[in-house]
């Protein structure tokens, strides 16, 4: 009886494992293999092994662009996360003010950007907000008497534009999550704090934020990964085929994609992909460990 269940278990998993093996696992291994070759447009079939050359080129040479892309990615992730959590926290606390009767309406309206398909939102912003002719921002600028501005043609404005869009898209999720966390805090803690003479700042600092920390940690980590891996915004806004906007901003993911599908440096692109994979694994192992350590402390 026991033996049949055991072989059964693998049988149940087999279709899923075959699918994942072909679509997920094999391409990763194959990417690793390509990363040690000089495969490119001219060496499509007759590529040769070049050892760690691609890795040396990506990590060792400053002009390969990978290191600056990595710096951009880290800056992007850091700034976006801080703003995302801080703004969402303020809005969620505001929504939970006693006596705010329209809370549910606000919450429903605020969720819309989250519900929209992401690529539609990005294209809509490209056309509706940032576009030099029809974009709402430029119409606003011209009505106010300023010159038109191409938001996506230079690196700094492009970075800020992408950031604004990213926050617009990701804040609703964070607000809803923090709002959920706020509901779970024991009300009696506030009551006794008020008896002790605590003001609103002290309540936030000593009760709300420490209580939220534990609930929010997994969500914040997940969101950090999403922001780190963000590709669509920068790609669709500034580097669409035939509509390159002029900024040279690259994150590591767009860098890998451009090298594979635009400049056809498959070897280099694959090496970069493997480096990114290692970074992600290291980061997730580190967060897992930190979470475990915190749990064993309590």
């Amino acid at each position: 009886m026991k033996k049949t269940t055991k072989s059964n278990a693998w049988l149940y998993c087999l279709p899923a494992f075959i699918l994942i093996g072909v679509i997920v696992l094999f391409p990763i291994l194959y990417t690793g293999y390509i990363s040690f070759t000089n495969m490119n447009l001219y060496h499509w079939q007759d590529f040769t092994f070049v050892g760690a050359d691609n890795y040396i080129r990506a990590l060792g040479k400053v002009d390969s662009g990978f290191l600056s892309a990595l710096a951009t990615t880290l800056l992007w992730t850091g700034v976006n996360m801080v703003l995302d959590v801080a703004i969402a926290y303020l809005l969620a606390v505001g929504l939970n003010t006693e006596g705010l009767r329209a809370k549910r309406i606000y919450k429903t309206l605020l969720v819309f950007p989250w519900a929209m398909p992401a690529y539609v939102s990005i294209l809509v912003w490209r056309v509706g907000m940032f576009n030099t002719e029809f974009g709402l921002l430029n119409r606003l600028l011209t009505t106010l008497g300023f010159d038109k501005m191409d938001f996506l043609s230079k690196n700094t404005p492009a970075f800020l534009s992408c950031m604004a869009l990213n926050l617009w898209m990701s804040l609703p999720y964070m607000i809803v999550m923090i709002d959920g966390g706020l509901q779970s805090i024991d009300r009696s803690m506030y009551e006794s704090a008020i008896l002790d003479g605590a003001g609103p700042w002290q309540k936030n600092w000593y009760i709300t934020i420490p209580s939220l920390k534990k609930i929010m940690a997994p969500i914040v980590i997940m969101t950090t990964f999403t922001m780190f891996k963000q590709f669509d915004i920068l790609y669709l806004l500034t580097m669409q085929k035939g509509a390159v906007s002029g900024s040279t901003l690259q994150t590591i993911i767009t860098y890998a994609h451009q090298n594979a599908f635009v400049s056809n440096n498959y070897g280099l692109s694959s090496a970069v992909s493997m480096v990114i994979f290692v970074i992600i694994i290291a980061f997730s192992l580190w967060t897992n460990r930190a979470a475990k350590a915190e749990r064993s402390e309590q």
Partner: protein
Amino acid sequence: MKSTGRKKIQLLFLNLFFICVCLLALVPILYVFLLSLSSGGGALITGASGTLTLENYRKIILEEPFLRWLMNSVVLSVGTMLLAMGTSVSASYAFSRFRFRGKNTAMQLLLLLNAFPQILSMFAIFRLFRLMNLLDSHAGLIFIYAGSMCIFGIWNMKGYFDSIPIEIEEAAKIDGSGNLQLILRIIMPLARPAIIVTAVMVLIFVWNEYLFATTFMLREESYTLAGGLYQLQANDYSRSWPLFSAAAILVSVPILVIFFSIQKYMVSGLTAGGVKG
């Protein structure tokens, strides 16, 4: 009395503030909605002169291959859902119910694989599919989508299977039902909420995917809605913003409807999983 007065003013300001924030959140969507109703080739809403019209919606549905794209999206979504759910329901059931060697390692390994951004292995898949002659075919895309959602499905549903008490199954076993019967008659109905939500997430994923859809589909008539919409705004010659806007609204409506009907479950499901992890 004085303090309630102050509170009222505070609330008034807070309400004003939130009305502004909501406007900020909705402006891009409202603007595109207005664009989609405007007449003319993109000069749009210049004061009162522009009249509102449904012309763009008529044009996008009848004159562009919109229905074809819709059809492709439906085929891909349903195909992916069947393949992804078929494989991941049984696997997640096994992971939840059976004890076998390597189970925890396998679960962790799946999570690790899922951390690899699929854009990065796109080229490898492209080469593989060229070899297997799966480029430019719906089957190929269905495989890719199902493969990438399979891990998510397994993890998502395993958690729910874990919460179904095993005693129910044991009782059924004593009553003499076989394994297959057990799954179809007892487990599937019990796990219905989790299965439905996972399936809906798969549907939304396919509906919203544009990158693989445009890279692996080489002819315009095999595009999905996402690919078609991308094409509409990328193609300089046929570029008409009102038309694009109408298409964007049409594509988003079903997703908005689905999102708001399962939102409650999504939020609670996500937080519950988060706290556990």
